[in-house]
């Protein structure tokens, strides 16, 4: 099937393959200014703890080069900038200009401009040389990429041999009761909070729907294996509501 006829999901909707990117961009442009506040509210602050756990598994050392993909407002990039030190380098990358603008300002405010770079990129075709990063992270971003397989292959390409990819993403709760409670919470509360804080309920309806359309833990692990990652594994967090996948390039 040609790309013109292909369809993909945007939340529960089926949309032409090429349209998803623009629709996702619309969502993030709408919420960029209050993205962090909304994250704190809907996750009840837990996203910060989950990101800390991601950093701990990233194995960053002084001198490393790190790509924080879909890095948005720069939460991870700021931490990485401090861990890689003067001799390292961090690239904060996102496809969305509005998110990047917020991220760039935060990097400057945090005193991290000396070893960071901001780049507007498409995760499916990363504009970086082969074997150029020790670590690639993507936190709550893979779900929004149209061609996830292409993105995983692209991430593998830019990783140095021995480098690692960390994917922090919403996933599938392992307990049915937890899944029910989580469904009720996310579909009932998130759009209302979105309406209240950023005057945009639809973006948070999309967020809740897109999570359900995202591959579960084992499927994503299989996709990483297929892309060529080695020693892939995942860690369930908050009972599987979020999972951290990790894979290495050898």
């Amino acid at each position, binding site marked *: 099937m040609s790309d013109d006829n292909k369809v993909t999901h945007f939340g529960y909707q089926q949309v032409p393959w090429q349209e998803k990117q623009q629709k996702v961009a619309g969502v993030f442009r709408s919420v960029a200014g209050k993205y962090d506040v909304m994250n704190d509210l809907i996750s009840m602050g837990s996203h910060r703890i989950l990101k*800390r*756990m991601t950093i*701990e*598994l990233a194995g*960053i050392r*002084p001198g490393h080069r790190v790509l924080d993909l879909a890095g948005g407002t720069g939460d991870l990039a700021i931490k990485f900038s401090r861990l890689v030190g003067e001799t390292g380098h961090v690239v904060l990358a996102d496809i969305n200009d509005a998110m990047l603008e917020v991220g760039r300002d935060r990097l400057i405010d945090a005193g991290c401009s000396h070893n960071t770079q901001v780049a507007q990129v498409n995760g499916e075709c990363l504009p970086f040389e082969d074997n150029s990063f020790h670590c690639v992270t993507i936190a709550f971003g893979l779900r929004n990429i149209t061609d996830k397989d292409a993105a995983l292959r692209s991430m593998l390409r830019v990783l140095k041999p021995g480098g690692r990819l960390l994917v922090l993403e919403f996933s599938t709760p392992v307990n049915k009761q937890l899944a029910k409670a989580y469904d009720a919470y996310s579909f009932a509360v998130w759009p209302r909070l979105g309406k209240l804080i950023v005057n945009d309920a639809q973006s948070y309806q999309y967020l809740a729907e897109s999570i359900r359309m995202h591959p579960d833990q084992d499927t994503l692990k299989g996709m990483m294996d297929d892309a060529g990652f080695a020693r892939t594994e995942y860690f369930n967090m*908050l009972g599987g509501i979020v999972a951290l996948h990790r894979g290495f390039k050898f």
Partner: protein
Amino acid sequence: MSLKDQSRSPGLLSTTALATVERAINTALRSDPATADRLAVHAGRLVAIETTLPPVAIYALVVEDGVELYHRSDATPDVAVKGNPVDLAALLLDWKSRPGVIGGPVDITGNRELLQELQTLARELHIDWGAILEPITGSELAQQLDVGARRLFHWARQTAGRLADQLGDYVGNESGLIPSRRDVYEFGQDVDELRMDVDRLAARVQRLQARRNGSTTD
């Protein structure tokens, strides 16, 4: 870090606890700009603190606006301290030490000067537990908890000091497990005296042997 360690799932509770401690330290630093400035000089330095029982490692990265705490790090720390929790607390928080009881051996590797400077800063820093708890508990309860926490730390410090004294006295004087300085001195004197007696005896034996050999030849 071994591959086995790297495959261990990070714990949500321990990460939350560490984040809370980090927040407490950074809040205290924000209310004490002089200490914060002195700490900022060491931005980029990594300190590893490892307790032997339970086996827990904490890595403290000094950054320009405070510290960041992690459970694991692949970087080589500038200074690493390792010991049991009581001995580490005695070292880092300046508790009263008593060799063999509290403040026992702590393994330090790396930049000792850096450790000393950070110890001094840590002792001068007053953490406002009330400010941290206020958003959760409200100001009234937070204030009470802050007072309670200060009393608890004061009590812990005094108790540790008393414990060091009492256990030290017991171990040193009553149980006889550890000799006092005087006992060691007297023992040393006895050994010296014995050594000299043995030397004298050896000399006398040599002299007698020489005399006996002389009479035999005669």
